[in-house]
């Protein structure tokens, strides 16, 4: 088993995300049924399953971005580091500081590259904390170095974020802008589905680098990606968890017939 969590700051639990009897409705349509999950800290956990099985819904419930729709109803609980995020006293801003999200299509904000990276940090810093230009530059540089983008963009930090960046680089930028606020969990919703094979490989490599330091929940359509880039794997079908095991075991000897059928491409 991966043991890199030991190098992390000490935490009370080794479970990063725990779902308890989670049921979710879009209007009158029930999308999730009694989801119970434990996502381990410092690991990459992938969620696979056919379209509409609820994997993105689970992901989008963990940072409560689902609520933007306005017609979502939830029962049960999701805990991030043992804190129920649906408890009334939880502040969305605090939750989203702890839980970062990477979307399917790279979505840099229409502001400069520098401002993109520092955006979250400016939102979350306490009003009495003062950061000089130099402090901010250091933060931006560290984040960009982490995603291996620094050398490429260091000379045009103040031009618009999308100018001259490939989709792969934009997606790395979207990962980099999560880092300055020091999240503990990263949610990734098919982060490579808009990328070509080379870009996919590069972003997967980056995600692999980030494990240990962050707990990563990765939704993917691509079973080969789940196999390559994750340590544990969850198979979902029709809004229910069918199987949750170590990735290698799941792909070698799935314990459920549905999982086996899906992995072998008989449907989905």
């Amino acid at each position: 088993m991966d043991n890199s969590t030991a190098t992390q700051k000490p935490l009370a639990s080794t479970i990063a995300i725990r779902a308890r009897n989670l049921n979710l409705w879009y209007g009158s349509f029930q999308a999730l049924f009694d989801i119970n999950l434990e996502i381990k800290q410092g690991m990459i956990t992938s969620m696979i399953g056919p379209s509409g099985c609820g994997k993105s819904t689970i992901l989008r419930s963990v940072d409560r971005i689902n609520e933007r729709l306005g017609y979502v109803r939830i029962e049960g609980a999701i805990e991030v580091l043992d804190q129920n995020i649906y408890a009334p006293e939880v502040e969305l801003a605090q939750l989203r500081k702890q839980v970062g999200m990477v979307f399917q299509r790279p979505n840099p904000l229409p502001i400069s590259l520098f401002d993109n990276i520092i955006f979250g940090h400016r939102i979350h810093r306490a009003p009495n904390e003062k950061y000089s230009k130099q402090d901010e530059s250091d933060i931006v540089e560290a984040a960009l170095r982490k995603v291996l983008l620094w050398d490429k963009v260091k000379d045009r930090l103040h031009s618009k974020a999308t100018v001259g960046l490939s989709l792969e680089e934009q997606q790395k930028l979207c990962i980099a802008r999560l880092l300055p606020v020091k999240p503990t969990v990263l949610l990734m919703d098919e982060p490579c589905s808009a990328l070509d094979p080379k870009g996919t490989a590069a972003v997967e490599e980056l995600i692999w680098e980030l494990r240990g330091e962050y707990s990563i929940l990765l939704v993917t359509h691509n079973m080969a990606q789940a196999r390559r880039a994750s340590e544990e794997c969850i198979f979902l079908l029709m809004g229910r968890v069918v199987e949750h095991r170590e990735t290698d075991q799941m792909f070698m000897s799935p314990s459920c017939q549905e999982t086996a059928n899906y992995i072998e491409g008989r449907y989905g």
Partner: protein
Amino acid sequence: MSGQHTDAALAENAGDSLDANWYIDKLFQGVMFVCGISAVLFVLGIFAFVFAEGAEFVIKTINWSQFLLSPRWAPTSDYNPTYGILALIAGTASITVLAMAVAVPFSLGAAIFIAEFAKGRTREVLKILIELLAAIPSVVWGFIGLAIMNPWIIETFDVPIGLNVLNCGLILGLMAAPIITSIAEDALKAVPDTYREASEALGASRWQTTARVVLPAAKNGLLAAVLLGVGRGFGETMAVLMASGHSINLPSSVFDSVRALTATIAAELGETAVGSEHYQALFTIGIFLFTITFIINMTADWIIRGSKKG
């Protein structure tokens, strides 16, 4: 066998309908083409007519420095007719500036509320109300200026006359507000939702998202909305004629009566001899107004195009 049969029948039918459709298609293309270019022809026609009527004055009679710089507009003077539009420009400009000072904050605020914060029924009702506001005829606005604002201003500010820049600017601001609001709302709506989602996922509140992401992204569209509001202010005639006091004046405060370019044309054109110098001077004002609104609209259009490309 049967497959071949249907294929042949299909081909034959397709041939027939293609012929009929081809003619219908051509016919409608022709009709649409005429409709499409008619708008352009009308605009060119109007411009040609206005310019033709004013041409003699522009080319021969005009004394440019007097026309643009003299505040004395005295076309009916017997021994010294003077055609200076400076006071009229000042009138139009002062009214428009005040109108924008009133309309822009309210309209942008309303647009932001409707596009970013209001939901469901509230949003629908607000949009309908704003369209309703845009549909009030300008003479009704003018009447409000005369009958309600005038006595109110006299009483509240203790001034001798309530038909002045303040009155007219407020009325014009209310008239321009719905246009600015609906265009600004379109500009905000055009900002992709993925930006808002990204920003909120980073922990920004609704308001932070609006201020730091949506407004910068929509700024060109918002600027264009304001410019079109300015164009509306410049072009409005009836309400301005009724509420401004219509006296030639370089205003020194908002309580001075002024006269606008448009109102001058409306009030005087019916009483001049066709082809006279006065008549031509009024058409020259028309050309001036046409040029300014044309420039404003083109700028707005250019800005909107730019924002779509970027």
